[in-house]
């Protein structure tokens, strides 16, 4: 369904970059960001090369260290094989645009948006202005006006909340201290790719002892930059500080690009707390390959709440490295796989210090030929005495065409620990269905209710409006009216 609609936008043919082939590039220039640039710089081509990476860095006017970081990452990307786990990744790296300015994505009109996406917006009651943005028709959602006062409050407390590109310019020292340190480019092929071509994402710094009472949402500053294909998020929670960050939204993310590969790095210092919530509902053509990792220090708590719907293949295993005594890590993951979808989701807990404790709860639902896998690692390093970890993964399979697998890895290099693992796979019980339908619920309503109940322990952890949308989405999925 996703064709390259950029071809139909405001294009200008210009000579390719020494390759002797004319390639289409995008002529529109965002006058606010780049008014002094010469048009020649705005060539965007498919494929990946040192030139492209240099160009991206140049366009962003980055310091040399960031450009070098990108170039080094590119080398690593090229030297690394594809991951041998998870699903088949049918991505042709030569066929991708690695950098699109937001204005360039405006080639589409509302008429190009598939009907089922529109229908879902209707059913979810997404406001008009947001729909256009979410469907990729409009590049900028005017959230600054609405949320401006909020930003002021945060600034007074010394909180930094900005997109990562801006942070490179405005907070270079702070950013550089952590950037690429939690997830080095060498971590995996897709982390390397992101490191080479990243753009957008959020940067958050919460100073010592500051608590932010309401969830910070990427939604507040919704724009194409921070929801791009290769966004890069870094969150630093200083000692005793608290933050809850919410990424994405439950409306379907419709994009004509097929690869989404983000990196999210988090540092939670002594007695700090961070919760990172993601609910994403990707269109069926997307490969969603994301690396997320947090380092938790003494007495700190890191929680990942990760909801994955849609996409062709999602591979995502949020991790918590517990670096000092008393650190805690909690990962709750929900995956819903329907026709043509493979959710390879899971979690990673690394106990690198004594008296650390972790918990993984994973719930997956497979329907209509969908496949979901739990892939998880619990690792206890030598000396991490008195560490505790528990893993619970429950899979619900809705029909005989669908599939669920569990790949739990446990590596323990210390005696004095307690590790528990439970896994269950269930089918929607005929008896449960009959009980509900005998009370007048249609079969679709009844299954939706059972599925909703299955993930309720996770949904109730979500901020209210996300929980409501999540439930509505599950209902939609169950009706089968939206793929």
């Amino acid at each position: 369904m996703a064709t390259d609609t950029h071809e139909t936008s405001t294009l200008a043919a210009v000579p390719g970059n020494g390759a002797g082939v004319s390639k289409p590039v995008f002529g529109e220039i965002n006058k606010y960001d780049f008014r002094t640039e010469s048009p020649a710089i705005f060539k965007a081509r498919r494929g990946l090369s040192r030139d492209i990476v240099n160009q991206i860095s140049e366009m962003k006017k980055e310091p040399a260290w960031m450009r070098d970081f990108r170039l080094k990452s590119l080398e690593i990307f090229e030297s690394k094989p594809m991951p041998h786990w998870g699903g088949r990744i049918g991505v042709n790296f030569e066929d991708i645009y690695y950098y699109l300015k937001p204005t360039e994505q405006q080639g589409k009109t509302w008429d190009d948006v598939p009907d089922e996406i529109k229908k879902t917006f209707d059913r979810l009651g997404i406001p008009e202005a947001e729909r256009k943005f979410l469907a990729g028709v409009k590049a900028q959602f005017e959230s600054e006006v609405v949320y401006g006062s909020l930003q002021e409050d945060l600034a007074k407390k010394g909180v930094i909340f900005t997109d990562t590109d801006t942070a490179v310019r405005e907070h270079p020292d702070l950013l550089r201290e952590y950037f690429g340190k939690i997830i080095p480019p060498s971590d995996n092929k897709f982390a390397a790719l992101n490191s080479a071509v990243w753009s957008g994402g959020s940067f958050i710094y919460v100073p010592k002892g500051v608590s932010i009472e309401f969830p910070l949402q990427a939604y507040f500053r919704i724009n194409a930059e921070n929801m791009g294909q290769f966004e890069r998020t870094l969150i630093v929670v200083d000692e005793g500080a608290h933050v809850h960050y919410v990424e994405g939204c439950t409306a379907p993310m419709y994009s004509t690009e097929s690869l989404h590969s983000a990196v999210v790095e988090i540092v939670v210092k002594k007695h700090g707390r961070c919760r990172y919530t993601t609910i994403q509902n990707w269109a069926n053509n997307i490969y969603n390959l994301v690396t997320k990792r947090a380092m938790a220090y003494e007495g700190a708590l890191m929680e990942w709440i990760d909801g994955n719907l849609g996409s062709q293949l999602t591979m995502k295993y949020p991790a918590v490295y517990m670096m000092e005594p008393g650190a805690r890590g909690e990962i709750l993951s929900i995956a819903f796989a329907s026709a043509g979808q493979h959710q390879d989701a899971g979690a990673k807990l690394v106990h690198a210090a004594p008296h650390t404790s972790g918990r993984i709860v994973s719930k997956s639902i497979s329907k209509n030929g969908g496949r979901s896998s739990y892939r998880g690692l619990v690792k206890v390093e030598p000396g991490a005495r008195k560490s505790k970890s528990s893993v619970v993964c429950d899979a619900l399979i809705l029909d005989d065409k669908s599939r669920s697998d569990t790949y739990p890895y446990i590596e323990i290099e210390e005696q004095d620990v307690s590790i528990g693992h439970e896994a269950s796979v269930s089918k929607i019980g005929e008896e449960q269905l009959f009980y509900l339908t005998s009370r007048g619920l249609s079969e679709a309503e009844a299954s939706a209710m059972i599925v909703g109940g299955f993930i309720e322990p996770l949904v109730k952890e979500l901020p209210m409006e996300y929980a409501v949308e999540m439930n509505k989405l599950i209902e939609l999925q169950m009706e089968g009216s939206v793929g």
Partner: protein
Amino acid sequence: MTSQHPEKLIIQDLHVAVEEREILKGVNLEIGRGEVHALMGPNGSGKSTLGYAIMGHPSYEVTSGSIEIVEADGNRRDILAMEPDERARAGLFLAFQRPMAIPGVRVADFLRHAVSNVRNPERKEGQELVPMKEFRGELKAKMAELQMDTDFARRYVNDGFSGGEMKRAEILQLAMLAPRFAVLDETDSGLDADAVRLASESIARIGGADMGILIITHHEQLLEHNIPLKTHVMLGGRIVESGGPELAAELHKRGYERIRASYPEAAAAEEAMAAEAAATA
């Protein structure tokens, strides 16, 4: 509405098989709206099977016979052609002998959906539910009548309920859904003596003159406030004898010796069924 035709649930020569094994072997039963009937019979005689067949459980295959509702206008509606939810919307209800737990689904949410569909049989999924405020008020009132704590509505359906709580929850659903015909399958089991008395009173109040009720029980207490017009005895998959309330008292006191002796054919069927059940288990 002309009331020349009292609304009735009519079951004729019903044969039901589970996994190709015949359990019900020709059941006939007629219950008018406003009537209470009791159904007794030894364990395994097929009482619950009848309840499931009426409600349309997919594992219980009706191999022959009919279940129909005679409407006030005299038309007959074929119940067997309906899905379970359509049967509920047509005014049928089964209080389960063993209600199912639905983890994560709150009693109030589930009931709001059920009430919305039963009161508006044309409702499609995704359409408006009964208004929250109205529903809450009604639920609260019904729960108070049943002496149930309001917290109950927020619990997950039958999840971790005690035996008694499950049965109360079934009565609550009966009260909220106000069906035309209800089968109460051992709704007294698991209740303490006081709770059975309360249940008996409640059912009488809920049923009033509007509900046709089939009470399946091994005891008499539930019948205290629900004097059956008829008591039926099931043995070996058939109703072998019907009588008045005194029959219930007799069976409760003396058991099924006399029945087995009087109906040797059904008694033989009972033995055969028990043997088959043991063989497949």
